[in-house]
């Protein structure tokens, strides 16, 4: 709302921060006001008016100050709607994908620029430049601060979901960045709350919760990655699993499946009962492959095929995929070769995988497998 009134992302952001700082100072002594959100909005708006007046050396600034109407009603409902607007503004397709992620984390997640830079392994200066550039484009090109029209919504919602999932994956792959995972889950919850009729938003949240639930079991004491089949299920977060399952059931009742819902359903089957129903998982991957026919999905499907029809038929599927630069392609191939009793070929494939990942837990896992294959590949004396 401040952005709409100020017409300036930076100013609105600074004033909102001022208001939060004032709240931290005053609420402990004065008590929390009856409408905390309304208090924050009013305070932030008053700060914006002050600042604009103070800086109103130019006519334009004075007019902008006049536009801020202090008489607007303080409704908590508006706040909710404004966060939705902000999500869509941050994820506007006219912004570069990397900038969309950064801006979402900055303006919605409240992460600082150094935090975002660290999370994405770029320098602070690079990230600051990226965010500044995005903000400048929002203001100069007049990227509208609103939820897109009905007709544009499906396309734009896809972009928003992709950004949130990207944030999640960034935190999931890099095991030491759990704050990104938590932030993505928070944004996912927010989106479901704001768009309760969008089954894909619900599907994404379910997918993230079910993955997040397994986090405690994903590495062993030595820091090596533990694959889902070998994880200690009692270490999974039962509450998150239950919540994820409930969301998947809600999606199923809707009967409007989309890629996130199907992936969530797969994750749900994985955590349902003592061991997963691979036939059902394979069927879900069949469905996912028709929706998103990418080689990565085909690779994941092949893993399920291996469980249902054996490693030989899976290897045939995997060998035909153009994923040479993808570490999981080599890791999956290696696993299938190992299971087919071809340790020396498996060893080569594990070695290829090892060159393609910089994640310590994955590297540790691959090294373990390489040692194992090396022992098996030794000719019998």
């Amino acid at each position, binding site marked *: 709302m401040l952005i709409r009134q100020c017409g300036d992302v930076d100013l609105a952001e600074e004033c909102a921060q001022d208001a939060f700082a004032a709240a931290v100072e005053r609420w402990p002594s004065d008590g929390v006001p009856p409408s905390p959100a309304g208090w924050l909005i009013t305070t932030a708006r008053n700060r914006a008016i002050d600042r604009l007046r103070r800086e109103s050396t130019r*006519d*334009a600034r004075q007019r902008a100050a006049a536009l801020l109407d202090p008489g607007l009603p303080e409704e908590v409902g508006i706040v909710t709607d404004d966060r939705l607007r902000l999500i869509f503004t941050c994820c*506007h397709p*006219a912004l570069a994908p990397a900038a969309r992620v950064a801006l979402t984390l900055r303006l919605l997640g409240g992460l600082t620029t150094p935090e975002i830079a660290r999370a994405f392994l770029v320098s602070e200066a690079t990230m600051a430049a990226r965010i500044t550039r995005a903000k400048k484009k929002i203001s*100069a*090109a*007049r*990227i*509208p601060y609103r939820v897109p029209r009905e007709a544009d919504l499906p396309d734009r919602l896809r972009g928003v979901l992709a950004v949130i999932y990207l944030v999640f994956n960034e935190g999931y792959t890099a095991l030491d960045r759990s704050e990104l995972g938590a932030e993505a889950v928070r944004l996912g919850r927010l989106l479901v709350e704001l768009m309760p009729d969008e089954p894909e938003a619900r599907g994404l949240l379910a997918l993230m919760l079910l993955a997040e639930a397994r986090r405690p079991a994903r590495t062993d004491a030595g820091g090596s990655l533990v694959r889902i089949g070998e994880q200690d299920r009692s270490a999974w977060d039962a509450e998150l699993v239950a919540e994820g399952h409930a969301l998947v059931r809600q999606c199923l009742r809707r009967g409007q499946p989309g890629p996130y819902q199907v992936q969530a359903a797969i994750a749900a089957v994985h955590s349902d009962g003592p061991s997963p129903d691979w036939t059902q998982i394979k069927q879900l991957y069949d469905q996912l492959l028709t929706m998103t026919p990418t080689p990565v999905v085909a690779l994941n499907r092949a893993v399920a095929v291996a469980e249902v029809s054996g490693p030989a038929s899976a290897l045939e599927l995997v060998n035909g995929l153009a994923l040479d630069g993808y570490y999981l392609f080599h890791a999956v191939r290696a696993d299938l070769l190992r299971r087919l009793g071809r340790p020396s070929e498996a060893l080569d494939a594990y070695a290829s995988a090892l060159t393609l990942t910089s994640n310590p837990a994955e590297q540790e896992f691959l090294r373990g497998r390489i040692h194992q294959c090396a022992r098996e590949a030794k000719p019998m004396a």
Partner: protein
Amino acid sequence: MAQYLLSVYQPTGGEPPAPEALNVIMVNLGKLQQEMKDAGAWVFSGGLEAPETATVLQATGSLRPDGTLSSDEVLLTDGPFIEAKEYLGGFTIIEADDLDEALRWGRRTAATIGLPIEVRPFFRVES
């Protein structure tokens, strides 16, 4: 309202479409422009002659701190300022509430003529 420049980028030396196809494109473009006019979005548009027809004028003086140039001599050269694989083939200036509206006109222009369209806001002068 803000003004946006919709630039059409054309490949250098590319084969132009056959006359009949070009005719269809021009008719459709005319219709789109009429729609822009009816919507009150259209400001100006025009196609440009080939880049070889351009002439560049360049002041030779350097900029002094007071904002004047050290020399008022102007050099004249034949051809476009930038030699590139794609060049500006034409443009439309529109008025729109925001980028989304400008992008809607830009998208329709791209779909009508099949060439890349760059949408760029004009610098806003507060009056």
